């Protein structure tokens, strides 16, 4: 697998890249998971790609490419090598961080790297990632012009950006919480200062990361601008190959830290992390995020969803968790079990209201699909609308951003 033959897109090199296909390819790459059984192959491919990225940057290959089992473990290794581990171990998350740092330290030692500050040399993120990125962006802009660049971005990276950004932002937040949690409200000044120093160390280490598969939006726009990564854009081939075989990675002068891709990723139609019966995102070392339709939830909260009752839902004080409970229980079932009253009924549907203590009421329109299901029945669904809604038509019209009096479809299917 050489730099020249490493092609991230699927179109032949001579054909103009089709932005929709390239975007679809990188959308899949951004959310790809790697089953544990693939680890050895994945690891070898990622290592080769990392070495290619160093060569493309004009650097000597790293003496060691260390495989880590999650972005958490890789970040811990980066903290050890970058000198931030002490600040984290002095912070309020020390107990939790110690175990993660110890595991990362063992991985470094197994790879023959001393688990101490400076052992890997300085970060080379700038020459490996940022400089070729900037060069490619300048070249593509010159080739396409400002409007052409904006148009291509809209069709490729711009489409992938919001969801990828939401995912990486969520991961960063959880990583920071795990290694450098905030000080307790009643903590004294010294603890607060240490908490702040720990957060700073974690953020600093995160700045050195290259996002691997989560760099897909940028790789998509460069790939579509192509053709491919031939010619002027050849400098990105190694980075693109890493993105197909690895998660976040940290390039240092003598050592590269490479995190595995997740083994589990569940999202809803809107692209948000979403799973009711286990982690929505999980890595080989057990680092995991639990979420319901994008909202982070504690792991044990999900386990309790099966035995829900209307009373339990009403009693939940956290409005966001109550919303999760309601969605899990099912609005229709809740309407029936809680004796909710219809507020209004017209030819568009039925408007329902559920009163909640210390919170705005849940107001929903019940709509019946106009097209029959294969068995001849019509699917009913509920959409939540603003609490001030007074009629079913106003509710349906609101879901489409149309004034009530203007919502008059002549054909519905």
């Amino acid at each position, binding site marked *: 697998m050489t730099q020249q033959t490493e092609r991230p897109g699927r179109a032949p090199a001579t054909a103009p890249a089709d932005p929709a296909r390239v975007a679809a390819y990188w959308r899949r790459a951004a959310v790809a998971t790697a089953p544990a059984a693939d680890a050895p192959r994945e690891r070898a491919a990622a290592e080769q790609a990392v070495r290619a990225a160093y060569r493309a940057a004009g650097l000597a290959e790293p003496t060691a490419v260390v495989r880590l089992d999650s972005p958490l473990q890789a970040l811990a290794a980066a903290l050890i090598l970058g000198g931030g581990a002490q600040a984290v171990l002095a912070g309020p998350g020390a107990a939790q961080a110690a175990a993660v740092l110890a595991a990362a330290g063992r991985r470094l030692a197994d790879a023959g790297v001393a688990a101490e500050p400076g052992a890997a040399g300085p970060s080379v993120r700038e020459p490996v990632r940022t400089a070729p990125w900037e060069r490619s962006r300048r070249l593509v802009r010159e080739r396409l012009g400002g409007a052409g660049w904006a148009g291509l971005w809209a069709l490729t990276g711009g489409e992938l950006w919001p969801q990828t950004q939401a995912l990486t932002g969520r991961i960063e937040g959880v990583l920071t919480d795990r290694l450098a949690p905030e000080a307790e409200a009643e903590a004294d000044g010294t603890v607060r200062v240490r908490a702040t120093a720990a957060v700073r160390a974690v953020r600093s280490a995160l700045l050195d990361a290259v996002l691997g598969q989560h760099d897909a939006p940028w790789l998509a726009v460069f790939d579509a601008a192509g053709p491919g990564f031939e010619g002027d854009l050849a400098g990105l081939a190694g980075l693109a190959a890493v993105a197909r075989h690895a998660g976040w990675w940290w390039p240092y002068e003598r050592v590269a830290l490479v995190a595995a891709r997740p083994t589990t990723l569940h999202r809803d139609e809107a692209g948000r992390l979403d799973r009711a019966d286990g982690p929505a995102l999980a890595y080989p070392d057990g680092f995991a995020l639990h979420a319901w339709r994008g909202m982070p939830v504690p792991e044990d909260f999900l386990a309790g969803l099966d035995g829900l009752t209307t009373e339990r839902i009403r009693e939940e004080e956290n409005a966001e968790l109550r919303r999760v409970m309601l969605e899990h229980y099912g609005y229709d079932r809740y309407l029936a079990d809680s004796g909710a009253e219809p507020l209004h009924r017209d030819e568009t549907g039925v408007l329902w209201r559920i009163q909640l203590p210390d919170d705005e009421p849940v107001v929903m329109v019940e709509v019946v699909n106009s097209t029959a299901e294969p068995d001849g029945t019509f699917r009913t669904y509920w959409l*939540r609308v603003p609490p001030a809604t007074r009629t079913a038509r106003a509710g349906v019209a609101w879901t*489409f951003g149309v004034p009530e009096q203007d919502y008059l479809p*002549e054909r519905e*299917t």
Partner: protein
Amino acid sequence: MYRQGDVLIVPVEEAAVPQRVAGLPGQPRDARGRLVLALGEVTGHAHAVVGPGELRREPGPFATAWLHLTEGGRVVHEEHAVIPLPKGWYRVVRQREYLPGAVRVVAD
């Protein structure tokens, strides 16, 4: 005005189409040559238009799209009945749902 599932298609007079629409990039057709109005990312089902014309999309998650059908066309979907559309300009709106403090797109 036409509704197919979570997509509303509103006829617009050509004179009422905003100037900025001319500057928006035309969306590429999918592998089957259709203009995709909305794509269900997990199911792969799509609200799509068959017929000559163009689709221009505003940036952003709740973006309105603008559909120009030069000879008329049909809106198709794997689970909904086909809707014929006369030629002309249309505003395409994706259904949304209310959340306290936020609004989200309906995932059909």
